[in-house]
């Protein structure tokens, strides 16, 4: 029973990692750039939701403010692309990495200025609710996190595999110039995917803030989500979820069964091992080019 409880709480945490990892993967899949600021975008999304919902700020009802904050984050994502990332069009990936790390610094600074550095929790109707399955007691928030993450992952997967826009996004990442010739509006597609990543970050942030509390340095969680994305196979949406779940489940078990001191390095040790032995991850997206 104990193991099951650990497993469930690990799964819920892993889903949040998976959601952030989804953001990484979305942008990587469509623009082949890596957004190191994804964790900070999640933190910003959580703070926007808190700013709209919590009584000490604006005190709007829960549902409209959630929708509003997802929308705001989508717009922020689009504007980031329009005014910052797009200027880097066609430049090396490493330059984009450095740029997004710097963006993360700035976002953390701005959030600290507006909301302060104390931890905040999102006031939500799910708080304190429980779901009982036999002897198993699950928090409402945990259930919500798991359900939303599953829905979102498969929705996005279907979006990339089935819709025209999703295919256009994949095409734009594989070869920008060729995609232009095929009539894909590469710049607009890139803007849309950043908006989508912003919205996903907002959802992750809201779920995270409902489960626990956020402060401006929560964005550093992005590094763990990063490990998740790499373990799952960078560029694969189900891979991001699986990687997130692996990292999330590993943590409580490592904390319980491995000596203190070794437990917190487990996800990174796995990341390093993964990069050495199978750099393309579980769901490999790398294919050998046939001439």
């Amino acid at each position, binding site marked *: 029973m104990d193991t099951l409880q650990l497993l469930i709480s690990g799964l819920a945490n892993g889903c949040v990692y998976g959601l952030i990892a989804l953001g990484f993967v979305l942008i990587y899949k469509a623009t082949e750039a890596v957004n190191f600021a994804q964790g900070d975008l999640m933190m910003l999304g959580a703070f926007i939701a808190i700013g709209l919902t919590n009584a000490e700020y604006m005190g709007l009802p829960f549902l409209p403010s959630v929708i509003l904050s997802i929308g705001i984050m989508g717009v922020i994502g689009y504007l980031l692309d329009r005014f910052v990332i797009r200027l880097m069009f066609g430049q090396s990936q490493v330059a984009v990495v*450095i740029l997004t790390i710097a963006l993360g*610094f700035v976002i953390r600074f701005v959030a600290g200025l507006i909301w302060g550095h104390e931890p905040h929790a999102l006031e939500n109707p799910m708080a304190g609710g429980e779901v009982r399955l036999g002897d198993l007691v699950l928090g409402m928030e945990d259930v919500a996190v798991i359900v939303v993450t599953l829905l979102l992952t498969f929705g996005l997967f279907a979006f990339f595999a089935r819709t025209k826009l999703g295919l256009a996004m994949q095409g734009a990442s594989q070869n920008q110039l060729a995609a232009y010739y095929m009539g894909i509006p590469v710049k607009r597609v890139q803007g849309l995917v950043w908006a989508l990543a912003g919205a996903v970050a907002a959802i992750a942030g809201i779920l995270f803030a409902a489960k626990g509390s956020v402060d401006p340095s929560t964005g550093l969680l992005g590094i763990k989500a990063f490990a998740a994305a790499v373990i799952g196979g960078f560029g694969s949406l189900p891979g991001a979820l699986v990687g997130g779940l692996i990292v999330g489940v590993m943590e409580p078990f490592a904390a319980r069964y491995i000596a203190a001191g070794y437990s*917190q390095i487990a996800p*990174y040790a796995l990341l390093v091992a993964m*990069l*050495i032995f199978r750099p393309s991850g579980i769901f490999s997206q*790398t*294919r050998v080019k046939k001439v």
Partner: protein
Amino acid sequence: MRIVFKTDYMQDIRPWKDGHQLSLYLILLALVVVAPWILNDFYLGELTNVLIWAIAGLGLMILTGHTGQASLGHAAFLAMGCYANVILLEQGVPFVLAFPLAGLITGIVGALVALPAMRLHGIYLAIFTMALSILVDDIIVLTEPWSGGVSGKYVGPVSLFGLEIDRWGTPWAFYWLVLGVTVAVTLGYINLLRSPMGRSFIAVRDSEVSAQAMGVDVARTKTMSFGLSCMVTGWAGALMGLYATVFNNETFTVIISIQLLMMIVIGGLGSIHGAFLGAVVIGFLPQFLSISKEYVGMVFGGSSVAIPGLEVGVFGLILIAFILFEPMGLYGRWLKIRTWFELFPFYRKDMFKRQKSYLKTERLR
């Protein structure tokens, strides 16, 4: 505009272009050597700090600027050099041996780390090195018997050829030690760039495929670059330890790694000048911010308020501005200004424009 006439083949591989350039650098060297008589102890300490960062920047510049491999984990090697130096000193090894050894050990470890990492490139290498940088904090805690763990370590004055070098007691001696290391590393770097190995570094940076076609062993070149880079970084770490005198597992965080990378980007990737210019920005930014905060407080009334995270935020903004508008960094800006004056009035706007490039996927190879 000066025109250098080439009358000798040696001129092409000489480290300096002509006597004029050489004399300028000699004047600069003379100025920094006499700095302890000009500056007071506070500014001398700041200058020492800048030089230490510059050495670390030179270390990373070998790897990132000249071999094109981005590393987000050089704080791990700073820590390595720092701890190796201090542990050797505690074992009774004299400083004159311990210091070079610290760099060598770090370099060898770096080359060993590079072996698996060489299968990775671009973004994956950055992630790998970042994971190392995160792990090093926990590794230091786990190896407590040697490293002192969370409670950290203290390093006192060291003696070099009978001269007592104390960061607080004899700041001038410490300054000269750091200056000596800086000059030695810089000269070594300039020499490296003239050697076949340095040329092959640049070849690998510009195009791995072409380098391979020209007979460069890419894996060996990258490993050498990693090792050399880590060696220099290890020396910088050893000096940082002596400068800080107290340090523990949280001194060399992943943030330091990121700052180091950003520093050389601001300075200008792929130039030795860039490491120094970036170090000046990093070293003096905190002072500059606190002075300007006081100034703003004076103008608008009200006391100067403490804004947490201001430094990092401003740093991020500066970096974004540089990457977007001056990707060649401060040194690139200086080159443009100099060219403008040299060619006046014939400078054209697009003289430094890069060729337009389009992105192709990495997932198909």
